[in-house]
């Protein structure tokens, strides 16, 4: 059976280091170079990571397809599989299959302005989108990147995002709820407070993407709605229990939606329309 959708593909862990306290960065690649170069995916898609004897779980891809050959994940230690994943060292082999899910509708973003709003761990999938748009900078309009973390020590990819601050073609705003270091040079306050800095938004020509903890959605979406952006141009990514990634096992079902196939990226219109989605 050549195309077994459930068959994990062996991949080697190339690099791993802690992003923050309980979130670890994993860079993996297929064992064969040829296969590595064939890897194709969209920002917002996810992979099923498989540890033989332990099980499988879905993880958002954090790398961008515009930098081929490698896959990157930011994984929080929260369950049995991640606990085991954290025990693995560089050069060990894990099983990976995918990509799954719909991903962000990149084509629709062409020539449009883009507001990327991140809370906490939401940086994992949205980093993929951010890096993708920066790598293809001329295809998109203005890009606003708003990232709120609780404390400086809880900001994922902090150094990387700080470096991006110097780019003139990106409006990057980083904020923390509270600075407990005394050395934080960026904003302090909630991510919603950053919206006042967004100038001259043309709502019909702007897409907003949001990812963060459930509590954040409501407040952030209120702000986006205030900007007049249509509901179908507001996109968010959601989480559910998954065993297959391909709409079979049923665990991620919500109404007629399989989060793994029809999501994990949904428009705010979907969310309003589909009960139980958030």
């Amino acid at each position: 059976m050549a195309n077994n959708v459930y068959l994990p593909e062996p991949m080697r862990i190339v690099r791993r280091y802690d992003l923050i306290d309980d979130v670890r960065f994993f860079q993996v690649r297929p064992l064969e170079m040829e296969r590595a170069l064939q890897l194709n995916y969209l920002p917002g898609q996810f992979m099923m990571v498989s540890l033989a004897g332990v099980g499988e779980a879905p993880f958002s891809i954090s790398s961008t397809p515009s930098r081929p050959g490698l896959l990157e994940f930011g994984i929080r230690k929260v369950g049995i599989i991640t606990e085991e994943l954290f025990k693995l060292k560089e050069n060990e082999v894990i099983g990976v299959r995918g990509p799954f899910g719909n991903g962000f509708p990149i084509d629709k973003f062409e020539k449009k302005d883009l507001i990327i709003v991140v809370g906490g761990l939401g940086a994992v999938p949205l980093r993929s989108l951010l890096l993708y748009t920066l790598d293809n900078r001329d295809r998109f309009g203005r890009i606003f990147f708003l990232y709120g973390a609780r404390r400086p020590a809880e900001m994922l990819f902090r150094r990387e995002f700080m470096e991006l601050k110097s780019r003139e073609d990106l409006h990057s705003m980083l904020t923390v709820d509270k600075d407990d270091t005394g050395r934080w040079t960026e904003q302090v306050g909630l991510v919603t407070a950053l919206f006042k800095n967004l100038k001259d938004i043309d709502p019909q020509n702007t897409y907003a993407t949001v990812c963060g903890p459930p509590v954040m959605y409501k407040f952030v979406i209120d702000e986006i709605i205030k900007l007049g952006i249509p509901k179908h141009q507001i996109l968010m990514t959601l989480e559910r229990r998954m065993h297959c990634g391909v709409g079979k096992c049923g665990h991620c079902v919500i109404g007629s939606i399989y989060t793994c196939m029809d999501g994990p990226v949904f428009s705010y219109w979907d969310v309003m329309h589909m009960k139980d989605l958030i």
Partner: protein
Amino acid sequence: MKVLKLKKHNLNDYLDSLRVWGEVYGPVKQGEKYIYGQLDDLSKLDTKMLRTILPVKKFLMPPKFNTFTFDENKYKAELENIPNRIVFGVHPCEIHGLLILDKFFLERFPDPFYGERRRKTAILGLSCVPDDKCFAKSTNTHYVESGFDLAFNDLDNYYLVWVGSSLGDDLVRIRLDLFEEDIKEKDLKHYMEWRNWRDSQYKLNVNLTAMPDIMELNYSSPVWDELGDKCLSCGACSMVCPTCPCYNMSDQIRPSQFTGKRERTWDSCMFKQFALVAGGHNFREARSQRVRLWYTHKLKAFITEFGKAACIGCGRCIDTCPVDINVKTVVKALKGGK
């Protein structure tokens, strides 16, 4: 489509001859109920059966089976030891159930485990006469045009046999001598009379028209809480439903060495852990939410997804739920208020 005739007294001989192709299964009485059992002994075959406890899906995605064996990090799919099987006696409604599962498992992201078993399972349909729990006429699943290899229509002392696939044709050719090819006008008349008579035998009508709208309107209805209070969360409804496909995965390893298997078992969205994610959040904590999901998924979501409800009117839920929660009672509760 080719149609043939088979004299009734030749049925057992014919089924016996099919063993050259694969294992032969059919309805067998077990206690007061029926199951699809292996027909080592054709005298066990009972063509009068109404519904088996488990539907045909048990052949295509067994309650528990291995998907992969593994060592260290090499996975090997377990697809080789699946035998050829012939399942005789599948009623029209259940063939409709198979068509739904086919869509589900074979269209987007084909499932090789289902696909391989489906390919190796010949479906031999059999006409039936409804009892007071059947409502296939309401779901329009009481006749079949596709999804089978052979379909037997019982007309007193002979069967009209529809050949529905090239495999079906091959199976006929194993004992072509038992079949007659000349369908006469009186056969057609006989068949039409039988249809009319059989259509008149449906006593139970469960009207699913407008269910999506009704369910939408009833989203916050207290009906769900009442059903949730009553539901035993035993999951039996999911096990017996011909269109319930949900499953769980678990990796089993040996204590002293790193070899193991990845096992797949039937699951039910009626169980508390079903939508529980790592970190402890449960998306459907309340039993009422789970009952609502089950019925909404069957009677509303499937229509959005596949254009028709995932209920085939087989009556298994009516026959199975100890506390009388089933398509009939739920639809009634939603439509009639109480």
